[in-house]
Structure formats: structure tokens, C-alpha cells
């Protein structure tokens, strides 16, 4: 990542306020289709409105309900649980795999792997949802594999079991994101000076110490990027859940994105949907902004 605004130069191209004409189209589109709806979301969240008839001012009632209604609140908790699968697993697994294959990063296998591991990033999440609902069904491949290795007792309809549905959705997300994280981290590792490793080996460091004293610290920025991207994906998840479980069974996989959609377009509680939307936006910011500070401090 380049470090912009490193130091202001004294001689700048003089365009003055007229230069805003260049920014105008972007600003107009952004203001019309993002900032305006965003401020309307805040406004709607203070009303009780069914989207058709007249609305009624309710102040902060919708937010109060958000904190007291266990169903609404649990959707937020589910989103945080998904972080485990969308972020933690891909990042840890990615680190492990990248560190292990660092030595063969230039081989032909690794070139092929680069293409293959990217496939989940290229397809629509909807398609990932369809594929995996099928794999995780009671007669799907996952259960077949389990039976084949003698774990037949564990087989179940993974997306239909109250205990496993959310983790199963998490696995789909992990599948989508693990390749991206691995490749990002691998790219970061290729920038580490090989001399560092050679020196460590001469000192008699094993792979484990090598990993903790060289690899991990040098990857601070890449790890920060992985975590940021995946945390946003977890908190704002919609496509996969919409296709794989629709929030069921028994609300076990209800996430804020889907709940907003249901509230706004099926239950027609526009105010409540907007309050949840505001909460979601704030949550994402609250999780992501501190991460930036962390990685920035590390990289300077």
C-alpha cells in the first residue's frame, strides 16, 4: 500500500475550487444513491411506518425494541458468531497454509493453486449457497465422506439442525474466503527478505520459531486487511443465508442483513428495519476502524 500524503509539496497544480468539477459526477452519484438513503435510514428509524400508509413518530422506540427483543438481538449475536468462521478460520488456516507452502511458492503446483483457490471469489455467493446446501444436505457429500471415514454417527442434515445450521453457514463463508486469505498472506510473505529466514536457520530456529519471530510480525498489514475484509463479509452477510437457510431453522441462522430484508419487505416494519440497519452500519464501523489503527501503527 502506498503511503499517500507523505509530505505536501509546495508546488501544487493550481486548479482551485474549479477542480471540484472533476469530482462532481462522483459526488452527485454518491450523494444521491448512498448518502441520501443513508440519512433517510436514520430518519425512518425514528418512525413507525408500514411503507404504504401514514407514519408515526416514535423516537427511539425501535432502538429500545432492538435491545429487548430477543429475536432481533440474537441476529446480531449470530453475525458475531459468523466472524469466527468468516474471519478467524480463514485467517488462521490461511496463515498456516501460506507458511507451509512458502517454500514451494514458485512451483508449478502453486501457480495452478493460485487459479483454483480463487474460484470461490469469482462466482456469485448465491451459487456458493446453492452448491453447499446440496453438499450439506442429508444425502450430500459431507455426510458421505463422514460415513466413509467411520464417522457415520455424526451425519445429519447440517443446515436443518438447530445446533449446526449456523456453523454450517459459517463453513460456506469460510470456503469462500480461505483462498483469498491464503493468497493475500502468501503475497505478503513473498515480500519478506529471504535473508531473514536464512539467518534464523543458521541460528538453529525451527519452523515454529521462524513463523512467530519472522513471518507473523512481517505480515501485520496483510493480516489486518484479511481481517477487515472478512469481518465486513461476516457482519453484512446476506446472499449465502438467503439461499441456504432463509434464516431457519427456528431463527438459528437469522443475521441482521436478512432480518432487515424481512422486516422491510415482508413484515413491512420500515422503522424497525431502518433501526437495525443503522445498528449494523455502526457495528461495522466500530469493528473495522480500530483494526485500521492497529495495522497502520504496525506498518509505520
Amino acid at each position: 500500500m502506498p503511503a499517500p500524503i507523505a509530505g505536501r509539496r509546495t508546488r501544487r497544480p493550481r486548479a482551485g475550487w474549479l477542480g471540484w468539477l472533476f469530482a462532481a459526477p462522483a459526488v452527485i452519484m454518491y450523494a444521491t444513491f448512498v448518502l441520501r438513503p443513508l440519512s433517510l435510514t436514520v430518519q425512518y428509524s425514528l418512525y413507525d411506518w408500514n411503507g404504504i400508509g401514514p407514519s408515526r413518530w416514535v423516537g427511539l422506540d425501535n432502538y429500545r425494541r432492538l435491545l429487548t427483543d430477543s429475536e432481533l438481538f440474537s441476529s446480531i449475536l449470530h453475525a458475531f458468531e459468523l466472524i469466527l468462521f468468516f474471519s478467524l478460520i480463514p485467517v488462521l488456516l490461511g496463515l498456516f497454509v501460506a507458511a507451509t507452502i512458502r517454500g514451494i511458492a514458485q512451483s508449478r503446483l502453486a501457480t495452478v493453486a493460485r487459479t483454483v483457490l480463487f474460484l470461490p471469489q469469482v462466482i456469485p455467493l448465491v451459487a456458493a449457497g446453492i452448491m453447499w446446501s446440496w453438499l450439506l444436505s442429508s444425502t450430500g457429500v459431507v455426510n458421505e465422506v463422514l460415513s466413509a471415514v467411520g464417522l457415520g454417527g455424526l451425519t445429519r442434515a447440517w443446515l436443518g439442525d438447530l445446533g449446526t445450521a449456523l456453523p454450517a453457514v459459517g463453513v460456506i463463508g469460510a470456503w469462500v474466503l480461505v483462498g483469498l486469505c491464503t493468497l493475500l498472506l502468501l503475497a505478503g510473505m513473498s515480500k519478506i527478505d529471504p535473508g531473514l529466514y536464512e539467518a534464523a536457520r543458521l541460528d538453529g530456529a525451527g519452523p515454529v520459531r521462524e513463523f512467530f519471530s519472522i513471518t507473523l510480525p512481517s505480515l501485520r498489514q496483510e493480516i489486518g486487511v484479511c481481517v477487515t475484509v472478512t469481518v465486513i463479509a461476516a457482519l453484512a452477510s446476506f446472499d449465502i443465508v438467503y439461499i441456504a437457510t432463509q434464516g431457519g431453522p427456528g431463527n438459528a441462522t437469522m443475521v441482521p442483513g436478512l432480518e432487515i430484508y424481512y422486516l422491510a419487505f415482508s413484515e413491512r416494519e420500515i422503522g424497525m428495519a431502518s433501526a437495525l440497519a443503522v445498528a449494523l452500519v455502526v457495528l461495522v464501523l466500530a469493528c473495522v476502524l480500530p483494526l485500521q489503527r492497529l495495522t497502520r501503527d504496525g506498518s509505520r
Partner: protein
Amino acid sequence: MITNRREAWTGRLLLGLLMAVTVVPFVSLFVTALHPKGTYPSGLSWPDDPQWGNFADAFRAASMGELLLSSSLIVLGVVPAALVFGTMAGFAFGHLRVPGHRIGFLVFLLGLTLPFEGIITPLYYQVRDMGLLNSRWAIILPLIGLFMPFSVVWMRAHFVTMPDDLSEAARIDGAGTWQLFWRVHVPLAMPALSSLGILLFLWTWNHFLLAIVLVDDPAKRTMAGALGAFQGQWGTDIPLLCAGALLILVPTLAVFLIFQRRFVAALLQGSIKG
């Protein structure tokens, strides 16, 4: 680099395993698509009598030609506009450094984290009041707006690295700001632009939420939105659904395999900047 043989082999094994896990869902989708229509095949079984005709049937059932056209039109509506607007704003913030450019840029920067669900509800009513519901414009215009933060941040990152001397030289030759932008800086920005173009293409093509909320007719949606509708309509027939899902994947997969180097590079840079 020092690596011993055992480490290399564990590496290969692990990589192979990871690749297998990545590919199995695609394989499962493929073999399921070959089973007789209306059956409920189990696991990864190769059918006795592969029904290649399922693909043709799914192509017809989903009116795939229409869907391809629709997605292409949406991409054509979104990507060039987003590229031009993003580049111009990136130029203004990154190179011209117009007064207040830091604030302007920061407002865009904060937009990077915005989940689309955060604005979908008012967006519905806004698009309805504009009379655009159920047209492709309902996807195109909001998507351009939603892609602005990333496009502006991306292009600005390119323009801040451009030396000022370049512009000084052009100005001495009597170039106005527009000529400076169009003749000097845009050609130099081509690598950044093409990567951005690839990303925007992918995100538009695969976009789901706006499609299902704002457009009811699958023939006017993006590919991903159409796939959602396809599941709604043909979810009753698993092999046909799988065949349809595969067909819908083909265009992106093909584009990906052709441009894979650029793609991988763009996606990696994209997530670093995003």
C-alpha cells in the same frame, strides 16, 4: 531459500487438500446436473446414463440468452460510468488536491465499509419514486453510487503517486486542466483503470441484493439475481437447478480463466485497498 524435502512435501499435500476442498463443490454440482430430471440423487455418484440434455433444457428454461443480455447491459451501464467518475474524482482529490480534498476523500473512504443492507430500505422507496422500479436503471444507477467509494479511493491511490513535475511540464506547454487529465494522466492510469474495471465487472455481474429487491423480472436482473429467481422457480427439480447454476457460472469462469493473471492481481490489490 532453504527448505528441506519433508517440508516441501507437507506443503504440496496441504495445498492439494485445500484445492480439493475448493473444487469438490463444483464437481458435485456437475455430476448432480447429469442425473435424470426430477430425481433426488445422493452425494457424488456418477449417473448410469448421463443426461447431457439437462444443460440444454436449463438453458431454455432459464432463457439464458436473455439473462446474458440483461447482465451485459447492466455491466455496460455501470462499469464505464463508474470508471470515468471514479477516475475524475480520484484525479481531483489525489492530484489537483482541490480545497477540502481531505474531507471529500474521507467521506468517500467511510463509505467503503457501508453494508448495502444499511441503505436498501430507503433506496427502494427512492427508486420507486423515481419511477425506475423493475427497470435495469434500478440496478445501474444505485450501483454506480455504491461503487463510488471504492473507485475514488482506488484511483486516488494511483494519482497521489504521480509526480507533480509531470503536470508542471504539461502546463508550461499550455495544456488546460482537462487536457492535462485526458491527454497525460488517463493514459498513464491505464493499469490501475483496467484492474478497477475487472473488479467492477465482477461485482456488478455477481450482485444480488439490489437485484432481488428492486427488480422483480429475472430477465432484467444481474446473473446472480437471476440465479436466485431460478432457484425459486426450478428448486423443485434438483438436477435441472444444478445444470442452470453451472450455466450461470460459465461466463464469469470463462472470463476469469482468460484474464486470470490480471484478475488475481486485481483482486489481491483490491482487497488490500478495500
